[in-house]
């Protein structure tokens, strides 16, 4: 079995006249934390969306390797890609984008309920994840009653609760102060690579990227460099 959980090859994606991706090849190793860095408009979010099957590239392929076998993500229809995202991937966005009217535990449990788990069990699991992320006692709070860092940890719990093989995070600390940002990043890493899962982070924050095991730099829709942050394990690499 390949040790790469994701393999992208020759990804090209344009939006009208804008070339977001201009031929990207990338392999993501199982259990690593990969940071994708670059200026605004460099194509890093589009790359994350292609890897996660959120958008289909114009050309190129993305393959996902799991215990169940190899899946050609780019060959799947919209419905199958939706299902793959729901069952195999987790997502953390900059704003959390949690459902404001649901409580913290309901937001987390919803991810399991969508996969058919009964609500009581889903909330039990969800509560466990919240507690593991330091949010015990806050299960019944509405999202508006949580701080930015707490809300982001609810989003991390939601991304993890389904046992996602890969968690994709798009500027997960973008709206947080530096202390909270470090705290959220620690929670994100502990709950992903700390458990043998894979984390792909899009960020423009060098501190966030520095906590990952590998960094790729993007410019004008291409990967222009790759490095291993100081202190990170040098064994990660494509």
């Amino acid at each position, binding site marked *: 079995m390949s040790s790469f959980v994701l393999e992208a090859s020759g990804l090209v994606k344009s939006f009208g006249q804008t070339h977001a991706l201009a031929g990207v090849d990338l392999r993501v190793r199982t259990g690593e934390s990969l940071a994708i860095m670059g200026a605004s408009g460099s194509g890093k979010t589009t790359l994350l*969306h292609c890897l996660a099957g*959120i*958008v289909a590239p114009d050309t190129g392929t993305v393959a996902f390797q799991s215990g169940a076998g190899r899946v050609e993500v780019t060959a799947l229809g919209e*419905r199958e890609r*939706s299902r793959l*995202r729901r069952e195999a991937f987790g*997502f953390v*966005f900059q704003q959390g984008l949690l459902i404001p009217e649901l409580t913290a535990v309901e937001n987390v449990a919803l991810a399991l309920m969508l996969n058919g788990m009964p609500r009581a069990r889903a909330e039990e699991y969800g509560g466990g994840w919240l507690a593991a992320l330091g949010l015990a006692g806050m299960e019944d709070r*509405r999202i508006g009653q949580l701080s930015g860092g707490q809300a982001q940890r609810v989003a991390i719990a939601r991304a993890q609760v389904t046992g996602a093989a890969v968690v994709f995070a798009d500027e997960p600390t973008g709206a947080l102060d530096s202390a909270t940002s470090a705290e959220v990043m620690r929670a994100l890493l502990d709950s992903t690579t700390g458990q043998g899962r894979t984390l792909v982070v899009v960020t423009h924050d060098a501190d966030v990227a520095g906590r990952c095991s590998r960094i790729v730099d993007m410019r004008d829709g291409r990967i222009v460099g790759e490095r291993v942050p100081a202190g990170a394990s040098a064994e990660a690499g494509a």
Partner: protein
Amino acid sequence: MIGRVAWLLARPGTGGLAPLALPATAFAIVTALLLTVLGGAQSFWSWTDDMGVTYQALAVVALVLLVVPLSSLGGAAARLSARRRDDRLATLRLLGATPATVSALAVLESVVLAVVGAVAGVVLYFLLVPLIALIPFRGEPLGLDGVLLGLPALVGVVGGVALLAAASAVLGLRQVVISPLGVRTRQDAPKLHWLRIVVGLAVIAVAFGMMAVLQVAGSAMVILAMLGAAFGGTIAVLNLIGPWVIRLVARSQARRAKTPQRLLAARAVLESPKAAWRQVSGVAMTSFMAVFAGTGIALLGSFGEAADTESMLLFADIRTGILITVVGSFLMVACSVGVNQAASILDRADLSRSLGMLGMPTATMEAARRRSVMSPLRITAIGSAVTAAVVMLPLTGITIIVAPLSLAVIAAVLAAGIGVVWLGLVATKPMLERSASV
């Protein structure tokens, strides 16, 4: 300075022109319907004979039935216009704009949208006038002269709509002014006091009492005033009790919800029972009217064929009046559902898109949205019909209310009202699909 900032805020944002067009369209429909109703009533007031008073009494009932929900729809349009911008205005508060500046901006923008919409509504009214003039009452068409309103009435209605928009903008944005963070982070938990139900039941009891003594009331004017107050009061009370009952039911549904769509729907209703009520309050009106129409038609039928020509003409006219009022009410319901749903989808576009990214099927989102409207709708339709039956009881008696013809008309009108809401949901489904697409 305020003018310049207002102009900047008026530029289309990521939602395109819809945030501006939606409330303006709603104001246009409200104005056109209001003018149409007033035009029809005006023609009744030109009759000075004995039968004229009967027609005027019926016109008062129809006016109350239509004007109260019209103003509620107008309020919804005004709130929508204010809400579309409250995020940006709250941001201005965070940036240090004074409460006075924020209030002035909110009022200015809402009034401009209301006036633009109202003027379009006047044009729509002029297009409708020839059709309304053809409607026969007392054996002949109402005629253009009868239904065409004068300039003072037109200016008055446009001014009234603008005033309504201004008042709603001030009230709606009070929260932004008091606590900008309250709106930006949506922390406020909805509060609805149980006292609503007490006040509501008291008003219904008073309305019941008024209907019971209507027969012995003195002059025609007193009867007119009592009829108007009883019907108007009951409809207003539905607005008071409705959100409270909807919240009660939604709380229980949220506790028992087993599927994502049921949980999302119940929580969406709980987030703002008032908003959930506003979406379907037109149906409260339709249910109310269903009982009114059903019993009215059955009552007319019970008078038999022995009636003289003049009475037969009156009965035919009452049927026409009921039909017009029901159709008008449906138009308001359709408008209300369409506007509210479109606004709600626009409001939640970012969230819908992110849920789509997470892999939530659009069908689940759509099912939750449908349930969050249809569940309050069921409560509203049944509750309002029962309330109307209670108020009508002293006037018509239980025999008329449960007569097969009454029940048939009530069922048909309710089915049509629910159908209109359903159509409003179906019509906005493509919008949800677009906003959830990733």
